[in-house]
């Protein structure tokens, strides 16, 4: 039935089909244009695949040799990047995104004004990885021998190994751009199914090999970094080939997937059946289901669908002690502490998540973007707080500060008609002159509504009414949509910055409502002060946005970037400032992390975050599950 649904796409007669198509358009809109599947890289059918119905294994996005379509030393697809064309205008290459192929005339000035960059001063990346920079692999021969006999594909090619030695922290990418490579995995394996993983883990235990699970590679917590002190052979376990939806249960609205599936595939494939998970983290193009579980991920539409911990029904994880899983699909249980909570957030220190049963929802009938302009950030936060209080948050509501608002403007593509530019001018005039908003204070909230058409419209009205109480003016769908689009291209923009001496990073926290304003102000000022104290020659960009609302608080995202010309060790300065910013976050009542996780980057604060006893609990779990530290990425603890 499911398979039939999925294949019956040409009819278009049914309601559901119509919705699905619309949904596809939207997803494609804010994500990417559909790509042709590179079928040549599909692995052999998993031998363990017995009676399970493979709902869809088509449309696999991630090949084993990721470097064939993705950058080895930057974000995202190789064909997609920002650059300055011959006319000195910023351009976004490729065909994948809405912004692709467009010119952004304001970006150059924004970069120059914000960072003091100069197109003449370039800091280009090393174009090709020299294999001499990569240490030869330390192989555990016995392990390799036995692995060979299982038929599970593996590689010790330098490129494959380097690709899996990092996430996307600034220092990791900066080093790659300079052609510097530290400790990398000695081997990469591509299990094809749960049983493959069981075998690999057994072998690793038998031969005392260090395993580091690798999903989408989008970690920003140094979670994928190989511990330099690790002397054993390190094997990167790439789950990308375990990306099937195994079944969909429409009666209970659940679906069962292999954990290697990446967000965009999961949504696309479910959409074909008229469903979605609604879990859309900003990294969803590349991040994997297993990664979400392992780091306690959060999606932008959590207000409707929930965060990963709300979505997961059942998890299968392979550990050195065996497989951990629950025995039923009941929606809630009182069976002692929830064992899922040992798995969620374990960050690859206990085992590999192989399969997940997750809630699904019918695709929303109607989706609408929106935006509200506020005279200042304070009013905006007050509005978000009220929305949360009334529990009427739309699928997504985000509040950008003034700096981000300006940044958003800088990414406006060239307008095609005189009329649009005239209209834009008129809007600006209305807001700044007629309504008296100070262009250096105003900020904007972006909204995304989902659901039944009438309900959405009703909901929309309710939210705009609240916004009006706080001086907010509706600012149109375009602004809203562009806001969400920026989320996906901003990571590409960092690469452009790095071509011109600008380095930056984002980091997040969660904080009680009454401290949101204080934390935003103090962290931004701390960044600015630290940069000054550390000898940064240019004013840094310190910007924030509230990206999630909860009953008792919000998730706050910070962007921080600066021009490092004149600094002898920019990464060190950067890390010091980032460290200070995290100290400031903690001092102001923010959490160590809302959804990025701890990894190795934030480990030093872990004990204080969870207390000695809490730390002891986690340690004792680790000691029981993995006494020989087979899962030796040394995250978290």
């Amino acid at each position, binding site marked *: 039935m499911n398979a039939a649904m999925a294949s019956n796409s040409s009819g278009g007669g049914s309601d559901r089909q119509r919705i699905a198509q619309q949904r596809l358009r939207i997803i494609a809109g804010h994500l990417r244009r559909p790509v042709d599947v590179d079928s040549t890289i599909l692995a052999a059918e998993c031998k363990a695949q017995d009676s399970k119905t493979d709902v869809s294994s088509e449309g696999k996005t991630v090949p084993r040799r990721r470097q064939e379509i993705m950058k080895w030393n930057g974000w995202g697809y190789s064909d997609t990047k920002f650059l300055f064309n011959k006319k000195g205008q910023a351009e976004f290459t490729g065909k994948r995104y809405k912004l692709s192929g467009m010119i952004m005339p304001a970006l150059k000035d924004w970069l120059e004004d914000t960072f003091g960059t100069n197109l003449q001063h370039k800091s280009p990346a090393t174009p090709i990885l020299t294999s001499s920079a990569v240490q030869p692999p330390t192989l555990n021969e016995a392990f390799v021998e036995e692995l060979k006999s299982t038929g599970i594909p593996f590689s010790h090619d330098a490129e494959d190994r380097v690709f899996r030695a990092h996430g996307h922290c600034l220092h990791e990418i900066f080093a790659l751009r300079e052609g510097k490579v530290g400790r990398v995995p000695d081997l990469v394996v591509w299990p094809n199914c749960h049983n493959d993983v069981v075998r690999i883990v057994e072998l690793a235990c038998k031969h005392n090999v260090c395993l580091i699970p690798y999903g989408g590679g989008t970690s920003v917590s140094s979670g994928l970094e190989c511990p330099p002190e690790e002397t054993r052979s390190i094997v990167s376990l790439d789950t990308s080939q375990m990306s099937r939806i195994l079944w969909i249960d429409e009666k209970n609205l659940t679906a069962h997937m292999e954990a290697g599936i990446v967000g965009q595939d999961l949504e696309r494939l479910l959409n074909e059946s008229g469903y979605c998970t609604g879990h859309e983290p900003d990294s969803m193009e590349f991040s994997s289901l297993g990664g979400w579980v392992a780091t306690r991920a959060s999606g932008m539409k959590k207000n409707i669908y929930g965060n990963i911990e709300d979505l997961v029904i059942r998890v299968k994880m392979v550990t050195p002690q065996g497989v951990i899983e629950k025995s039923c699909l009941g929606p809630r249980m009182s069976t002692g502490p929830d064992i899922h909570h040992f798995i969620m957030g374990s960050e690859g220190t206990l085992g590999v998540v192989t399969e997940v049963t997750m809630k699904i929802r019918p695709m929303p009938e109607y989706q609408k973007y929106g935006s509200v302009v506020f005279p200042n950030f304070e009013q905006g936060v007050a509005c978000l707080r009220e929305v949360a209080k009334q529990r009427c948050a739309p699928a997504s509501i985000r509040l950008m500060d003034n700096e981000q608002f300006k940044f958003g403007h800088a990414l406006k593509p060239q307008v095609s008609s005189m009329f649009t530019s005239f209209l834009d001018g008129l809007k600006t005039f209305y807001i700044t002159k007629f309504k008296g908003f100070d262009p250096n204070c105003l900020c904007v909230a972006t909204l995304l509504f989902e659901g039944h058409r009438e309900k959405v419209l009703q909901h929309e009205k309710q939210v705009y009414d609240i916004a009006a109480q706080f001086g907010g003016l509706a600012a149109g769908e375009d602004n809203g949509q562009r806001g969400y689009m920026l989320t996906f291209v901003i990571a590409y923009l960092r690469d452009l910055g790095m071509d011109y001496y600008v380095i930056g990073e984002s980091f997040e926290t969660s904080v009680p409502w009454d401290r949101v304003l204080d934390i935003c102000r103090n962290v931004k000022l701390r960044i600015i002060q630290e940069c000054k104290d550390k000898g940064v020659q240019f004013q840094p960009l310190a910007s924030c946005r509230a990206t999630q609302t909860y009953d008792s608080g919000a998730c706050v995202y910070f962007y921080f970037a600066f021009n490092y010309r004149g600094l002898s060790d920019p990464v060190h300065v950067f890390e010091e400032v980032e460290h200070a910013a995290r100290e400031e976050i903690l001092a102001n*009542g923010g959490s160590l992390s809302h959804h990025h996780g701890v990894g190795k980057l934030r480990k030093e604060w872990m004990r204080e975050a969870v207390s000695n006893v809490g730390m002891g609990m986690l340690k004792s779990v680790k000691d029981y599950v993995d006494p020989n530290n087979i899962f030796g990425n040394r995250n978290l603890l």
Partner: protein
Amino acid sequence: AACRTLYFHNPMLKKRDDFEDVLEERRNSSDLRYALRCYTPVLYKGVPPCKSSMLKSMVLQSDQLHYVISQVSKETGRKTDEVQEEASAILDEMAHCQQLSTVRFFAFTLSKVFKSLFRSICVNEEGIQRLQQAIQEHPVVLLPSHRSYMDFLLMSYLLYTYDLTLPVIAAGMDFMGMKFVGEMLRMSGAFFIRRSFGGDKLYWAVFSEYVKTMLKNGFAPVEFFLEGTRSRTSKSLTPKLGLLNIAMDPFLKGEVFDVSVVPVSISYERILEETLYARELLGIPKPKESTSGLFKARKVLSEDYGSIHVYFGQPVSVRSLAEGRVNRRQFNLVPRHIPGKPGEDIHSFVNDSAYKLVRAQEENMVLKPWVLLASLLLQNQAAGPKEGLPLDELTAQAVWLRDLSRQYGAFLHWPDQMTPSEVVSSSLSLHRGLVRICEGKVQLADPHSAATPEEKLLNQAVIVLSCASYRNQALHVFLRPALLASAIHTASSTQKQEVFNSFSFLRNMFSNEFILCPGATVQDFEEASYLLVKTGAVQVSQQEVVVTEGGHRTLAFLIAMLDPFLQGYQVVCRFLCEEATETLTEKQFIPAVRKFIIKHLLAGGLRYAEVLSSDLQKNSLAAFLRLGAVQKIKGVHQGTLKVNKVMVNSLEDTLGKKRALCYAPGGNRLRFLSNKSQMCLFV
């Protein structure tokens, strides 16, 4: 380590700003035009000053106050409305209502007054620029030293002159006694706090919320006196922590990014209240502040009070003070509007900061040559038969002392364009009420004829205490070396450890008397050693501290500097052993000690009339209480003092080792405690 960072870098390297005389322009242009000129101060983040009515309603509507009001209402059973009204009444009594017109009125009249009283009012303009910068960046707290009623009018006057946001000033309630003046001050930006409101939760809540609201919103710089009250002795007073606690709270709780604290040092060449203070210290009661009293003070208008120096110090960031000292996370677990007693760590942080700030004030106090002369004349007088010092010898000594004090980092304003003898004679002439020059010899002024010897003594003491208040201005420069010099003098050997123990004892003994940062004994010792070694007075090796051949003069001077205090504390010990009865109360303590001292002074057994200072007596009692040599009895006989005579005796011994008091020792003194065990008791 705290104090050290602020001070212990080589003080000689301390670069200080130059001064500008603000009266010069006043003498050359219209005061009226000045008072009416366009006043457009720079603002903190462009926040305009807040109307007082608006400020009041912000305070009354704050979560903090609501919480306390409902708490008080629950505890007392009164209606919340009633408590709310009380809060509102407290606020009305407290709040300032700054008006530019009143400020202009003051600008005009003060111009006239200042010009007639003072030769110049010198301000470091770089400090003003720093302040202007600070005001724009963070909420600012102004902390002027407090030596005169003049201080806060002067501060506002200067800020108006330099077009800076006018401060809001915490003033004691006693000003409100002066009806008209009190209201005038209120309109110029003063707000009034009761002197004591111990357990009154509501009062505290209104008060702290009022100050915090002004700070958090950055409406205006908040000004208060860290010393709590005017120092009658010109020594800096032990800082009071209440307001500083409140001022730091918004930073600690993350409500502002930072708070800039600006210590301001105001030094008067001649203090208006000079003899008034001396009389007060001698127990001649202080006239209650009254408007008519102020007008009587008019005769002061005809006198020459020299110049004033106002030094706006480097703004101190509370954030940087707290860096690595305070764990701000502790404030994240309780809603911030619920008042909580600050923990031990916060208390000690605020206390250390307060000491640092007072030291910063001291450091930038401008010293006039007269301060050195007063020190020399007092020492000469105490040295023996009253002959006076030949003028040329005084000049020579003054030059010697000038060089010494400069080496110790004193901020000395010695007019180098004049010859030393000119400097000396012009200083003497400004203070002609305190000195007498007879046949080329200089000594302290002789009091006029008096009916009784006691009266004569007190009159003499007025002169001595007045002079001492000038000497005290330089005390902070010499204090640490003087403690070391006295320690070397009293220690039983030249062993470094012995000297250190002795130093540590003295420092501990005098920590109510002088500004000595808590817990900084080692740093102070190092600093003192450094200065004495640098000037060649002592040599310090791994084991020994030895006075050099040429060092005796310096050491003698330093010892003599501290000597009146040593003797004072000893006399108090004597009193406690000999005369303190079972029923002695804290209240009776001062008059009784005074009587005792007068008796001994008249009998010729004491050298220093200075020990009559009630300030010294109070401080010594506080020290004895702190050390447990005296205890306050609680319960039925509340307020009575219980003296541990054994301990007091041994304290006296330790203070007076190698020094024989001139009168015969009486009573059963315990002389056989070993040095070591005494040290253990007190160090």
